């Protein structure tokens, strides 16, 4: 047992180390080249130069946002995959992304400016709809939740297409740009608020890591082991939707992170959610920081949508490991 705990601590420390390295590297990369060795003195001196301002007013908020959003999407992926016992579920499967995108599209054509709020309300609306449709006589039916979520997402994307076909060119551009997802957000108070909500959500979800272990055996089995499954399912669903909804509302739809990172980490640390949740959180942050760094430097000064990088990079890496190290994805 002690051996297990030590192994867990080593994983967490290693990922934190990696996070530091990737974070510093990302800080040094960009159109205005600031050499790696100049960063540490800059942090220490705190001198208000242009370079300092580029680092801490432009790049650092973006890195923090990438860390938070990547962590949020990965944790939600772990929660939903464990709860639904399904390896193909992502944070977006249950209507979060569809609802958010619909909210944003509507507010763009209506001329409403506060897009994160519109996105969050859209996500909240879609997920609540899914929840109430899937609920019968006090029971939350897992299969129904999944199917309803997928259908609501489809309906949302159909309506978005309709809106796009009717909108003017600059509005169309706005909608497309949002849907592609971006971590460019200059509003520091907003980043702080989002980080706070997400961190609290992630902290609460850690308290359910053992319940997720039991739930992955099956609902009746979990009941036999004394888990109050209705309360657990309800809490996890609301928690996951909230974390993902908040993340999507600031960053748009950044795909693949929430689907891939949980599988990756399961490959390395095993299926126990007590270690899977914290390591996925860190790994998701690292992965998104790295992807975003690539996205903004690879054809600099132009920027690629970060979702393109997470898809191509994540997908290929995943297939590589899948074939290299036999991964158990169920049957």
């Amino acid at each position, binding site marked *: *047992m002690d051996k297990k*705990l030590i192994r867990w601590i080593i994983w967490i420390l290693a990922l934190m180390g990696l996070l530091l390295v990737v974070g510093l590297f990302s800080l040094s990369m960009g159109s205005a080249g600031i050499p790696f060795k100049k960063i540490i003195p800059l942090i220490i001196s705190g001198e208000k130069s242009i370079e300092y301002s580029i680092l801490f007013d432009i790049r650092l908020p973006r890195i923090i946002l990438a860390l938070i959003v990547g962590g949020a999407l990965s944790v939600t992926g772990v929660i939903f*995959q464990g709860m639904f*016992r*399904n*390896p193909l579920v992502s944070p977006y499967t249950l209507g979060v992304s569809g609802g958010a995108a619909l909210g944003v599209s509507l507010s763009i054509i209506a001329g409403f400016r506060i897009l994160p709020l519109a996105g969050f309300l859209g996500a909240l609306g879609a997920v609540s709809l899914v929840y109430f449709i899937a609920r019968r006589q006090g029971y939350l039916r897992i299969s129904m939740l999944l199917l309803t979520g997928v259908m609501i997402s489809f309906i949302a994307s159909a309506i978005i297409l309709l809106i796009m076909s009717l909108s003017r060119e600059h509005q169309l551009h706005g909608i497309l740009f949002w849907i592609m997802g971006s971590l460019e957000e200059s509003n520091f108070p907003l980043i702080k608020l989002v980080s706070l909500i997400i961190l609290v959500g992630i902290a609460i979800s850690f*308290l359910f*890591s*053992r319940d997720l*272990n*039991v739930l*992955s*055996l*099956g609902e*009746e*089995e979990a*009941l*036999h*082991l*004394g*888990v*109050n499954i209705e309360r657990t399912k309800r809490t996890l669903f609301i928690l996951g939707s909230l974390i993902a909804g908040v993340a999507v509302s600031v960053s748009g739809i950044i795909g693949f992170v929430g689907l891939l990172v949980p599988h990756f980490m*399961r490959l390395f640390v095993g*299926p*126990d959610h*007590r270690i899977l949740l914290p390591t996925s959180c860190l790994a998701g942050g690292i992965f998104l920081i790295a992807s975003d760094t690539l996205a903004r430097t690879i054809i600099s000064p132009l920027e690629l949508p970060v979702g393109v990088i997470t898809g191509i990079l994540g997908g290929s890496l995943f297939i590589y490991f899948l074939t290299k190290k036999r991964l*158990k*994805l*169920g*049957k």
Partner: protein
Amino acid sequence: MLKLEKVTTGYNTKAILNDISFTIKKGDFLGVIGPNGSGKTTLLRVISKILKPWKGRVTLEERGLDEIKYRELAKRMAIVPQRMQELFFSYSVRDFILLGRTPYLRRFQLLESEEDLKVVRGVMEETDTLGLEERNLEDLSGGERQRTVIAQALAQEPEILLLDEPTAHLDINHQVEILNLIKNLNQKRNLTVLMVSHDLNLAAEYCERLILLKEGRVFQEGSPQEILTYQNIEKVYKTLVVVEKSPVSFKPHVFLVSGRNKRKQV
């Protein structure tokens, strides 16, 4: 003492069990037999509080199941399901058995305590699963897997063990191995056992008492000698059989009569 009082229940609006009453005393080894669809598995579900009775009630030491929380129930009663759910993650045998300690862990408790580990070591010895510790669940043979599932149930330290066809899909060697293990637990620990079985001969061999179900009702309850008569089996299973005594245990043994199982009679 587990008691069913006039329990009627089912799914949606269809009643599967009708007016079922019986009592299991501490240390009993009770078998439930009956044809497919007679309500055997449903009976286990209502006893384990998965299904609620529409009428009547189930009580554990005079307390209705609806007053007992799942968590408390899980410390007193464990169930070995007929067929384990397809697992989406690959647990090691040890981690899987450790999950049996769930009802004893508190919300903020991240790791199992020394006490939990001690209990798990104990049940792994008892079920002979110590050698499988690091193996993955899906790499086990049928017999090893069943021992592991029983070990997880025992890790709950139950007073009552419910088993749903514990020997289905096992060869005779492993059937006997599993049932000897359960018999042993019943005698040494005074564990109360309720076993649903399709195998009349195994049920006769191991159970002290049998309940024969027919179409959701208790057809008859009694010792294997009383229950397993050719008349009863013909009435309930609509099958012609010969019942003899086992030359070893003197328990009844049912022989099929080939080619003549559907006798038409006025």
